[in-house]
């Protein structure tokens, strides 16, 4: 199935709940709200016509300093039917909470930890919700656009980056 067929199929099963994104990007993804995610995730994985058994990638996105939302993109792939799909969930920066799909796709375990590590998005229901790449006591979430680079870490001074070639 191609993108449009998948969207139609999902809509048929979810009472036209989701409408394709019509933003400025000619996007080929489905933008949904966090509360629907878990149900949809099970559907995506278990439905016989979709069988998205492989989670290719989970990407955290910060839409910019002015934008009030953080986004998470889920790239799915079906090893059985050889089709792909992307789901995107936006959450407000004030309360970034998304249900975890770590039990549905096991790899989401580490991917979600990475997104949390870099963007501070909390994944509810994750059984091992810790930072993964950064130290446990790291402050801030580095991939956010408003991240301020620390000058010291545990008393170690971070050398300043030279702006131009010298």
């Amino acid at each position, binding site marked *: 199935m191609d993108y449009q067929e998948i969207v139609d199929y999902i809509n048929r099963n979810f009472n036209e709940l989701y409408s394709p994104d019509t933003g400025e990007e000619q996007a080929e993804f489905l933008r949904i709200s966090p509360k629907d995610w878990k149900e949809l995730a099970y559907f995506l994985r278990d439905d016989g016509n979709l069988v998205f058994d492989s989670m290719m990638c989970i990407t955290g996105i910060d839409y910019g300093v002015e934008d009030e939302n953080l986004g998470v993109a889920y790239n799915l792939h079906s090893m059985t039917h050889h089709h*792909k799909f992307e789901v995107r969930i936006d959450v407000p920066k004030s309360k970034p909470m998304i249900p975890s799909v770590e039990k549905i796709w096991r790899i989401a375990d580490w991917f979600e930890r990475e997104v949390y590590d870099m963007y501070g998005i909390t994944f509810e229901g994750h059984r091992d919700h810790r930072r993964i790449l950064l130290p446990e006591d790291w402050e801030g979430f580095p991939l956010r656009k408003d991240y301020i680079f620390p000058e010291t870490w545990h008393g170690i001074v971070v050398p300043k980056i030279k702006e131009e070639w010298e």
Partner: protein
Amino acid sequence: MGIETLTLDRSAIQGEEMVLNIGPQHPSTHGVLRLQVVTDGEIVTKITPYIGYLHRCFEKHCENVTYEQVIPFVDRCDYIASMNNNFGYAVAMEELMGIEVSEKVHYIRVIVAELNRIASHLLAIGTFGLDVGAFTPFLYCFRDRERILDLFELLCGARLLYNYIWVGGVSHDFPIGFVEKVYEFLDYFEPKIQEYNDLLTFNKIFIERTADVGVLPADVAISYGVSGPNLRGSGVKWDLRKNEPYSIYNKFDFDIPIGTGAMGTVGGCWDRYYVRIRELEESVKITRQALDQIPREGDVHAALPKKIRPPKGHVYSRTETPRGDLGFYIISDGKPKPFRLKLRSPAFTALSCINEIARGWMIADVIAILGSLDIVLGEIDR
């Protein structure tokens, strides 16, 4: 009163569990990785991997440099197979920008990528042998890998981090006589595969140590997003070069080797290892075909954009590196710097299943399983 009344309270004689840190400084973690291992005697009951010791926030770097400048950073992710990483980035960018590169560039890319795949698999095979205690195969592999690095040095001056495949082309055309040199190498290399088989693959001790150990069933592998030779070792016939052909891989005739369980259960360490050995043969096959067909004329710089400024939009593209599916999720906002660049690393997903498959084995097996997954920490930590 029979003998049945004699019971033993086993909980009273069970010893305490011991927590052992394998790494960050350990000879067999293939980088700076820490595995916190809970052991009961020699049996490992739980493994918690701690990664990030090499973390340099590659993705943040990328947001601060232009698209061209990302390529050297990509090199440094999977430093064992830089060509393949360059390739993956170039494919993603070309998809985002809609660039069509010339036939010759495609062939050059395939040749260098397959050569680098051979080099990377040689390293994986050698270090895996080292992990189970065989020292000599390691040096045999390095002897042959050296020749590939010499070829790359001739090609672009670098031996490890090439910065060779650019968006829209490659940095240099093949130097004079390079094609012949690659032919020469392939003729030299092909018989050597048999040497590895004789020395390591079919060694009884090696089979005892690796077959049936760390079995990764196909469904678990897919759920964990394991890809590349590790997935194929579990018996899943999945190779992006064949199933989602990018570049010109659809022009070549080659097989996808999968784990068959010839020496034990499908998906054991031996299967993962043997898939790599067989892939060496396939890569040689592909390279030979590419060398036969490569057009002699053509400009490798023709499609290079003057300035890389992709249109607004996003792309998720993946290619097959020696370690598996390398994905790039790139969001462009129309500026010369990436708005967001995410690298989906195959080694990252491979390592995440270590607790699942290595639990219940002995310490020596954990080392073997880790070696069979062929991880590169530069890519995991990014």
